[in-house]
């Protein structure tokens, strides 16, 4: 009996300790970055350009570049992801080989390492599509699209975040009660009318969740843009799709590993990290809140 009690205590305390350890990791990582970063984050830091060879000044170009990246990415990725989700939930026969193939493709896409997306962006968008565009549009030898730029980086990121959109929208579509669809169909509406006027408006929150989660993921990933468009420092903001751009995550990486004086810019590094963290969490929390509402609707 005593042996049992000891075992009981040790098993339950081991599990509790593990849970506590996870909480501690979260607290320490977040706490460290918030404490170290908050003193440097000022209005000037958020709106200024890097100066003095990147050792002073702000990170506005990186914030702007990140913003541009996720906007272009969403314009491409969210409609495609939403329509794919509509196909999978509304049109596809769940057991048809084609639908299963698409589901398999989405699952596979979700498991591809981020760096491989970067390779794909380089091999396909830059080397194949971009170079072909240059050959067709520009005089021989000139290079415009066949090099890293914000368009190719955004497209790469759009493909990476596609599964996130698809899964979220699918969940939202499934949360629309069958009765609504059947009522609509019974009143004489066609399938497309039902989807367009009944299902989609009722799953708007879910679609928004998908978009937000994709943006959050896209803003946080650095590996795919390492060689598809991000730049260390640019004197000007990008003003065309064929320009390179600065990005928050890339800025953190490059400033903390490759700037000439890593120690001197520690404050900037921490502050940039804090900005990225706040950005992704603001997005994540709004997505969690929206999803919570979707699930509440589902329960009704």
């Amino acid at each position, binding site marked *: 009996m005593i042996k049992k009690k000891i075992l009981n205590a040790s098993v339950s305390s*081991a599990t509790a300790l593990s*849970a506590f350890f996870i909480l501690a990791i979260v607290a320490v990582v977040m706490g460290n970055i918030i404490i170290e970063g908050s003193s440097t984050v000022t209005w000037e830091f958020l709106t200024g350009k890097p100066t003095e060879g990147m050792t002073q000044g702000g990170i506005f170009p990186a914030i702007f570049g990140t913003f541009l990246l996720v906007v272009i990415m969403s314009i491409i990725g969210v409609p495609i992801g939403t329509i794919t989700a*509509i196909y999978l939930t509304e049109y596809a026969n769940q057991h048809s080989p084609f639908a299963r193939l698409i589901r398999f493709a989405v699952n596979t896409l979700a498991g591809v390492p981020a760096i491989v997306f970067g390779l794909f962006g380089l091999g396909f968008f830059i080397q194949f599509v971009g170079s072909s565009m240059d050959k067709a549009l520009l005089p021989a030898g000139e290079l415009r699209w066949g090099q890293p730029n914000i368009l190719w980086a955004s497209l790469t990121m759009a493909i990476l975040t596609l599964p996130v959109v698809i899964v979220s929208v699918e969940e939202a579509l499934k949360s629309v009660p069958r009765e609504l669809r059947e009522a609509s169909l019974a009143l004489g509406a066609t399938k497309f009318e039902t989807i367009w006027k009944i299902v989609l408006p009722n799953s708007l929150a879910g679609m928004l969740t998908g978009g937000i989660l994709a943006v959050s993921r896209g803003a946080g990933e*650095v590996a795919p843009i*390492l060689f598809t468009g991000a730049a260390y420092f640019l004197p000007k903001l990008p003003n065309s799709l064929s320009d390179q751009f600065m990005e928050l995550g890339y800025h953190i990486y490059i400033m903390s590993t490759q700037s000439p004086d890593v120690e001197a810019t520690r404050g900037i590094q921490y502050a940039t990290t804090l900005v990225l963290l706040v950005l992704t969490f603001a997005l994540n929390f709004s997505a969690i809140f929206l999803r919570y509402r979707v699930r509440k609707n589902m329960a009704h």
Partner: protein
Amino acid sequence: MPKNQLKKKFRLGEVIAEKVVTIVAFFSLAMITLIFVFVFRETLPIFFSGNAEVSSVPVQIEQQETYGDEGIQEVAMQSKTSSHDNEGIASFDNLTGTTWQPVSGTPKFGIVPLVLGSFKVSLIAVLFAVPIAILAALFTSSFAPKWAKELMKPAIEILAGIPSVVIGFFALIVLASLIQNIFGYQYRLNAFVGGVALSFAVIPIIYSITEDAISRVPRSLTEASLALGASKWETALYVVLPAATPGIFAAVLLGIGRAFGETMIVLMATGNAAMLTASLFEPVRTMSATIGAEMAEVVFGETHYNVLFLIGSILFLFTFVLNAIAELFVRQRMMKKFQGI
């Protein structure tokens, strides 16, 4: 209005809508195919340009790029002693060699240290993450009071939401010093630091899938166990865990896949020197970090460029196989197991 006309008009719109939706849905499939094709396409020149341009360039050791600060000399020393006759081309011998030194008079593309490096760091990460994540999932499902459950859920979501570059940054600045102070070894950035940091990214995956698997264990099983007089921990250990094993196995596989493919954390925290060593506390260069660090500087179409794509293909195939196995396991085994009950 004649009824027929009305019907026909509507149907045309319907057919077009359905076709458009189906075609767009095809996009994901097209993309995954294109990824396969284009990542592998760039590796082909390695296998089809077998003519060796044998020249006797004197061995120049250029400093290897490392994105940590340590371990440079070590590698240079190591590669001086090994000799290869194939210059500039990636012959099979060169590829399976033990020296990775792509930027030098006689480039060496031995990917063995990179593959082993990836395995080493992933193994450390998984060894850390698996027990913690599984025990914590068991805690939330079997032992935790309600407030602790409510606390764990957002904590895991937060951990999963931290961008990997932020974890890498934290590891580079804080964790590396912390662990060095504890163990007192020479190199600040090494496989161990990278592995521990990587486990931060792996824990949420393993935890979530394990918790999901545990919650799918039928209540009748746990209740029967408790009714027979088993205590909570006995039920958790001998009933819940075994019943959830296929799911947990899948969780571990997916965790390994994530660890293997992760780039930014290992790029920033492992020291990035391609050394062949069994020591945990020496710098290591993984496959993903090699691509991330070197791809921006290579000349397109060169052997180095193609070899980096080859490394990417290996990464891709490996994670693909892991994910496929995990999925099979979850679907089929879980189904079989619970349909019988």
